[in-house]
Every structure is written in C-alpha cells, then in structure tokens.
C-alpha cells in the first residue's frame, strides 16, 4: 500500500473509533506527513487539554545568525495541539479543519530547546470548537507564544476524500 493510502486507512479507523486516545493518535499520526517531518510527539493530556512537543532542529531554524527556530513549526505545533484538544474534550475524534488561528510571539525561543505546546479546548458547539494555548521552551509561566483559534467540525467525506 502506498504511504498516503496507509495514512488514509489509519485516519479512517480513527474516525470510527468510539473514543479518542490522544497518546495513541499521536503515535499513529505524528510519524507521518508534516507532523512526522517536524518530529512532534505526545507529552500529556487531561479532560480538555493536551501537550505536544517539538524538538529544536537546525533545519527548522528561521534565523541562521541566532539559531532561533522559525515560527512556522510553532504554528504547526499549536495547530496540531489545539486541534487535538478539541477531540480530547469531545472524547471522540471529530474531523475538523482550522478556520482561524492567531498567534502572538511573546518572545524568541531559546535555540536548542524543545518547544512544548499546551492547548485547551474551552468551548464546543455543534459546528465549532474554540481553543487556546501556549508554547514554551521549559517554563510554562514564561511562554514563547500564545494562540487562540477556531476549528470547524466537518463531516468525514469533507475531511478526507477517499477514493
């Protein structure tokens, strides 16, 4: 089976599961595609929150003079973590797409340090999930970024076109 077909088959299985296991989801999904390329991994979760980590890497640097990580990988990490926090809160994997994501870069991340995103879903409606989160590089009280976003809950066929 081609890589993309395997990926689609795994997501299809997740869509049918009657509960959402953030750790298992992370193990299956974060080895593939963009999250896999960035080496995202699961740290912890609670009722309506989840933590994901992203190790610093030279090829993800945004400023070669300082070695500071680009902000792109931080967007991706916060996108994944906030999205997963919605399914965590709803206790079921709900196909969703990002509608809106705002990120404030509070300070530059220290080169070499792993970035941890802690994301929380604070409200859901029939069609939307409202999320917020921070990213830090060791101390959650001294974040590098703050995020607020909205995910649109969609139907499975809209989420993934399976032939």
């Amino acid at each position, binding site marked *: 089976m081609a890589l993309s077909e395997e990926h689609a088959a795994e997501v299809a299985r997740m869509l049918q599961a009657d509960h959402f296991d953030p750790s298992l989801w992370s193990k299956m999904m974060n080895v593939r595609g963009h999250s896999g390329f960035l080496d995202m991994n699961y740290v912890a979760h609670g009722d309506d929150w989840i933590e994901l980590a992203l190790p610093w890497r030279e090829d993800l640097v945004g400023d070669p003079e300082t070695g500071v990580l680009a902000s*792109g990988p931080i967007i991706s990490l916060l996108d994944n973590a906030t999205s997963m926090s919605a399914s965590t809160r709803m206790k079921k994997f709900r196909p969703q797409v990002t509608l809106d994501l705002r990120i404030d870069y509070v300070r530059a991340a220290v080169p070499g340090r792993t970035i941890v995103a802690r994301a929380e879903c604070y409200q859901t409606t029939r069609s939307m999930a409202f999320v917020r989160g921070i990213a830090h590089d060791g101390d959650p009280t001294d974040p590098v970024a703050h995020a607020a976003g909205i995910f649109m809950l969609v139907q499975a066929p809209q989420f993934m076109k399976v032939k």
Partner: protein
Amino acid sequence: MVALPPYALSMGMFTDHDEDGAPVIAMDFSERNTGRPGFLHGGAIGGLLEMAGFATLHAHLEREGIDATVRLKPVNISIEYLRSGLPERIFAYGEVVRAGRRVANVRVEAWQADRTKPVASCWMNFLIAPKKGSEG
C-alpha cells in the same frame, strides 16, 4: 533577492518570481507538508504565509535602504483558512500595509491554481529592531 532561511528551504519553499519588487514564494505539495491525508497542513500553509510576509517586508525595507541595518521580529500573526490546501503547488504574496520606524503591518494571501480563490490569508505585525552594532 531575499535569502530564505533553513526552515523554508527544508520545507521546499522557493521564490517563484518577483511581482512589483516583492517575491512570490511557492511550495510544492509533498509528504513534508501533508496534514490530513491528501491535503496541505494548516501549519505549513501558515509557515508559507509567514515567509512571504518576511520576504515582502525585507524587499520593502531594502528599497528604503535600511534592510541591512535592521532585524525583523514577528510580533503576531492571524490566519484565516479559506479553502482546503489541495495536493498541488501553493503560492503566497504579501503586501506591506504600513511600515513605520518600529512596527510594520503586512497582509499576505496564498492561492493555488486560481489566484482569485485564496486558500488562506493572514495579517502580521513585525517589530523592526536595529541590528546590534548599527544605528537604526
């Protein structure tokens, strides 16, 4: 010509062409920027928007003759996702709304085959800080 940083290069971003003195940044679909199966990852689209934002502001400051003396720090970004990112080349182009002495505001749009159907757009604020050792 604005040099793209390691992150942009490892994601496969490149300058497609210049338009009114600012670059159009492009990225081909690959495993590296795949989100849900068969679609671009929202974070990768965000990363591309940001690169186009940086590039257009650098080009603007270069025309003003001060690009070499300043460092750009992104302050915030707000992204609207308008359409799914399809498995094909994506482009992004930014416009400087205002560049003052300390802060600049930039708007960026990303599109695929049809430029009139944007995939995502964003605004960004940048802090324009003097480089160490140079007078800003």
